[in-house]
């Protein structure tokens, strides 16, 4: 580290192997990664006890940069891989980092089933409204009318509300924030990781180079300004007149309930069978 002021987060980075990272200038992925690291740092969890698992996508490149037990798996399959790790080593904290496509397109089934199972995994979804890595095809989270390379005339497809989907599937902790709201993100991730059960944090993010250019959104600062101006907290939205609610990004924790966790229930079963013997 030599001449660089040691920031707390440097401890967590594979800084002398993999930096500067591969993301485009202004891409939110780095901000989200920072928020995750800071949350873990505050929680004082040992790096050895953390597994970070991802699928495939720009966002899914995160694990390679951090000094945890890291797994860069298959497109859409981060959650089952994470399930295997968590199920065999329940003491570990397992964090999945994934994109909107990775988690809700090809990975949608695993997402809803992990939510149903209420297994103690934290899923951080970097929702940049596009397939970044493959160059800008529409994702299930691309807004209506927006342009993508496979929706050249504007998107006619509907979008998932990721948080609604997670709640519908039975998730016990669900929150949304944006890359601009880095402190909020950090705190929400902290809560999610502490939560004993399946937790989801959707971070609305900027992909200035692909999505931003295709849709003339300006650079990263402009896109983040939009996050700031066009988002509102759960409390705030209630106070808004109906006609102003439309199109707002609602931030906040939608659900945070204590419910029996999968591994705990499994351990109970094992204990119970042992007793019977």
């Amino acid at each position, binding site marked *: 580290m*030599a001449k660089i*002021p040691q920031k707390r987060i*440097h401890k967590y980075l594979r800084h002398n192997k993999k930096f500067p990272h591969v993301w485009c200038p202004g891409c939110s992925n780095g901000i989200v990664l920072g928020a995750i690291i800071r949350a873990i740092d505050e929680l004082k969890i040992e790096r050895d006890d953390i597994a970070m698992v991802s699928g495939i996508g720009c966002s899914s490149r995160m694990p390679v940069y951090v000094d945890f037990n890291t797994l860069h798996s298959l497109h859409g399959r981060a959650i089952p891989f994470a399930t295997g790790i968590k199920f065999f080593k329940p003491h570990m904290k397992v964090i999945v980092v994934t994109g909107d496509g990775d988690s809700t397109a090809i990975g949608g089934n695993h997402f809803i089933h992990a939510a149903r199972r209420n297994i103690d995994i934290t899923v951080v979804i970097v929702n940049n409204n596009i397939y970044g890595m493959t160059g800008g095809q529409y994702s299930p989270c691309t807004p209506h009318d927006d342009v993508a390379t496979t929706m050249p005339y504007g998107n006619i497809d509907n979008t998932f509300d990721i948080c609604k989907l997670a709640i519908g599937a039975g998730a016990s902790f669900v929150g949304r924030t944006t890359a601009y709201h880095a402190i909020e993100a950090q705190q929400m991730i902290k809560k999610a990781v502490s939560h004993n059960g399946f937790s989801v944090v959707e971070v609305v993010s900027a992909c200035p180079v692909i999505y931003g250019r295709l849709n003339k959104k300006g650079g990263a600062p402009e896109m*983040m300004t939009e996050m700031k101006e066009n988002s509102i907290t759960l409390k705030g939205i209630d106070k808004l007149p109906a006609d102003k609610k439309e199109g707002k990004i609602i931030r906040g924790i939608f659900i945070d309930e204590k419910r029996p966790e999968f591994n705990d229930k499994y351990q109970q079963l094992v204990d119970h069978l042992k007793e019977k013997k």
Partner: protein
Amino acid sequence: MSEKIERHREGAIIKDDLPEKMEVEINEVNTSGDYKESPVYIYYTWCKKCGICVEFCPTHCLGSKPDGSPFVEHPEKCIHCETCDRLCPDFAITGAKR
């Protein structure tokens, strides 16, 4: 000029042949002030000139060089809020109190 996006492709984003740059002293350090003196330290080797720190520093303590890279324009204004830290996507700037 073509508006075509120069896509980067999957697998496109690995750089293995880079030297381990963290160990290297950087020229530009002086431009932004040495980190021992300056309240804010910018690590130019990692900085990608996205402009986020400049845009969102609440006290406008940062400025933009012609090539887009940030520098500490008004060191005195820094309140060590660490906004720049948190919003920098490249772990390239630090405004924490030392």
